[in-house]
């Protein structure tokens, strides 16, 4: 056996944390199979009722909303994030590159509440956007962004953009520029070089960024809660509501467990689909 100094010392804190994390996960699974005793925080006996309750229409809509929000957010974050990452990597001056990076990261470091509250002020009926549009005479009455899917998607795109840009930029920065130069020297225009060389080479980054944007949107809580204002219910807002409004923690546990499995299933489906497409494209 090879020498492994400090293995035990260095690994034990993380093993302790892993145990805590596993225990909390087992606690969720255990609670999801227990009955809810109204008026009591302690769960009752074993039951599968929590999972059959989830077939109710209200929960179905939460799953649907979560899925739609994830898809729309990922699509728009990619469409906006790609040019941004491209401009950042290809910027000739280091100052411009740093500036684009720092501005792209601002939403990430503003914190959920500051960011979401700011969007409430931008999107509200008497908010910034409606005031500007009304003053310019472009609209006669305020557009209802608050409490709608549109409003939530706008704020979620803003929230996922930093991670999408960083992942795309990492992929773009590792592309060999000589391949583009070769295409150019063979007479391809800039647009053609981009679509036949750069974009295909950056596809792994695009796939990774899409998955991450999906996972982030799925776990977002403050944005659908505050901008959706109870009108856009998602799995995250539903879990909180079931837990802290009805104090039905067994149901909250089964809902978050089902939600997690749902998200993993969708991501797995997405990844298989992409692999199929790649195989198809290789022919």
């Amino acid at each position, binding site marked *: 056996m090879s020498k492994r100094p400090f293995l035990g010392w260095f690994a034990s804190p993380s093993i302790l944390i892993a145990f805590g994390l596993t225990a909390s996960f087992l606690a969720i699974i255990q609670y999801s199979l227990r009955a809810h005793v109204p008026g009591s925080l302690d769960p009752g006996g074993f039951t599968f009722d929590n999972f059959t309750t989830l077939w109710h229409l209200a929960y179905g809509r939460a799953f649907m909303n979560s899925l739609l929000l994830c898809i729309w957010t990922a699509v728009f974050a990619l469409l*906006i994030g790609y040019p941004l990452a491209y401009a950042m990597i290809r910027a000739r001056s280091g100052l411009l590159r740093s500036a684009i990076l720092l501005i792209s990261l601002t939403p990430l470091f503003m914190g959920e509440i500051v960011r979401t509250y700011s969007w409430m002020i931008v999107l509200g009926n*008497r908010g910034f956007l409606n005031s500007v549009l009304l003053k310019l005479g472009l609209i006669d009455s305020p557009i209802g962004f608050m409490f709608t899917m549109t409003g939530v998607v706008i704020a979620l795109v803003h929230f996922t953009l930093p991670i999408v840009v960083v992942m795309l930029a990492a992929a773009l920065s590792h592309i060999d520029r000589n391949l583009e130069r070769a295409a150019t020297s063979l007479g391809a225009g800039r647009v053609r070089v981009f679509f036949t060389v750069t974009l295909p080479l950056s596809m792994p980054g695009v796939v990774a960024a899409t998955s991450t944007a999906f996972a982030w949107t799925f776990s977002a809580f403050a944005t659908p809660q505050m901008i959706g204002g109870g009108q856009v219910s998602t799995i995250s807002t539903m879990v909180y509501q079931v837990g802290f409004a009805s104090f039905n923690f067994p149901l909250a546990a089964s809902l978050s467990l089902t939600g997690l499995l749902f998200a993993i299933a969708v991501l797995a489906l997405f990844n298989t689909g992409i692999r199929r497409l790649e195989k198809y494209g290789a022919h």
Partner: protein
Amino acid sequence: MKKSLADHLLDWSGRIFLTAILGFLVLPFFVVAIASFNKGAILSFPPEAWSVQWYVNAFEYRDFGAGLRNSLRIAAIGAGIALIAGAGFAFVFQRYEFRFKSGLNAILMSPLIIPNFTIGLGILILTASASLPRNLWTVVTVHVIIVLPFVVRSVYVSLQNLERNYENAAESLGASPAYVLLTITAPLLLPGLIAGGIFAAILSFNEFTASLYVVNRGTTTLPVAMYNYVREYADPTLAAISVMYALAVAVLLLVLHRIFRLERVLNVE
């Protein structure tokens, strides 16, 4: 080579699009900054009169002060623990083979996929079913779990870029493993460790969703206190504290960028 008209069009539309996106990214911050100086309690754009009373209000509101103290304490302790555990794990993960290595890695990295609300709910249920007290350490535990993957990643990258020859040289000259670790490895890793620690502290300070599940009256963090404020009041006090909050984090981020260059930390060079 002379640029054609099409090339110029492409360049300019690209620049306009880029400016629009950057505008979208910073728009909420500027709007909240304007709103924070609005004189009336009800917002209007542009404000009819200006005032700094909401800043005074934010300072005088007790829950914010208590929340800030809790958040700073939790971020400091949480980042410290996450740094020790994360650096240790990154070290053994990068250098050694051991039993359950990939399993341990999968568990520790799982918070990147498991939503924060599920982690918060899990720890809440765990403390309830094990009859553990819900205190500051509960919140710290949640934060450590959530920020650990980021610390591990950051330290792992520094370990990969570490020149092993210095350690080998010291070892071949007879230095003990502990001596090599303290005098060669640790100093070389220091920038990566500091960056990882600051990153963890910022993430912990910003964490809201999981905290909402595990805080009680005495351990309310600043983001949770701010959320509670929005639910009760509609005046621009929250805009004022938002501006201060964002500026403080921005300054920290700029310092981090100054010292470590974020391009390198994020691997996008």
